[in-house]
């Protein structure tokens, strides 16, 4: 078995590849420490419109407008932002049938050093289930890029928001 550790993609590179493979061409972002390498990659991609927003709920609105303009939108965010977005996801995306890919850094789980992240971290999967928002997790042995493509396909076919939850151990996975 050959080892090619030096060329294996980083978590951010895998996520970015998934975004490109899914054909995402419009991204809004609210930062998270786990997204600090990914956001510049998106910003430098000439075929993706990227704008930072002030709050995730605002980003849900901007992405809905982008979809109406023919784009495939995604939001880069921390899971705390789900709490800031619930009404918009329900009374805009779910109401009209507008797809959105939410790529979420999932804080407050295994390895979390900040206690304030824990309550939302634990609530995040439950909130998504309550809202009937499908979510996807990076599975061992599966290319994260493939999960992102799959998630966008579900959003697009079912015309609804979907989430990809990328927890702390995912971001620590080293090449």
């Amino acid at each position: 078995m050959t080892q090619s550790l030096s060329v294996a993609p980083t978590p951010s590179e895998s996520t970015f590849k998934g975004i490109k493979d899914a054909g995402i061409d419009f991204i809004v972002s609210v930062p998270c420490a786990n997204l600090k390498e990914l956001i510049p990659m998106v910003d430098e991609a000439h075929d993706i419109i990227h704008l930072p927003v002030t709050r995730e709920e605002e980003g849900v609105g901007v992405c809905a407008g982008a979809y109406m303009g023919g784009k495939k939108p995604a939001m880069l965010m921390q899971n705390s932002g789900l709490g800031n977005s619930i009404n918009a996801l329900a009374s805009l995306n779910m109401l009209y049938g507008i797809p959105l890919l939410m790529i979420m850094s999932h804080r407050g789980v295994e390895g979390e050093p900040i206690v304030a992240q824990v309550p939302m971290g634990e609530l995040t999967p439950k909130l998504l289930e309550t809202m009937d928002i499908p979510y996807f997790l990076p599975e061992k042995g599966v290319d994260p890029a493939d999960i992102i493509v799959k998630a966008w396909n579900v959003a697009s076919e079912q015309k609804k928001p979907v989430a990809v939850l990328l927890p702390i151990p995912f971001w620590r996975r080293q090449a």
Partner: protein
Amino acid sequence: MKRIDAINEIAAKAKESGALLIGNIGIPCKEIHHVCDVPTNFYMLGSMGLASSIGLGLALSRPDKKVITIEGDGSILMNMGTLATIASQEPDNYLLVIVDNGAYGSTGNQPTATSKNTDLAAVAKGAGNKNVYVVANPEDLRETLRSTDKGIIVVKAEPGNTEAPVIEMTPEVILKRFMDISSQPSR
């Protein structure tokens, strides 16, 4: 002037210039629908505060089209960050019209902060927007609409609603007929 006077002017401008028009939640949408129902109108039925954001996303996605959003003072106060995000992008094809009547008009005209000390034009400027206009009568609004397709117009109005009927279209139909035009490149 009342909000309906502003809506009359803005709907006429949208029609003339072929702009896509995003309407704010509540009675404003009903009034737009009543004044001039065309497929290039998108009516918001929920998510208060996000009309300005929807318009921004649309304008950035379709630089080949003009986009106008009608917002209220209450909505802008609920999503004030939008003024900073719009300033950071400055799209040439995006005009945000804030009808400021100092009241939450759809819920019983409770006063908003703009009825006291908040100056939305100053907030918009402070957020970094260069093209900010303030008008207080239909003639000045018409003139300003004639002279620009971008920036932010704050229309000072009095509280008061018309008896515009409920929009009977389903959300799916509103979106479908709008997107048949909004998602396609202009010829």
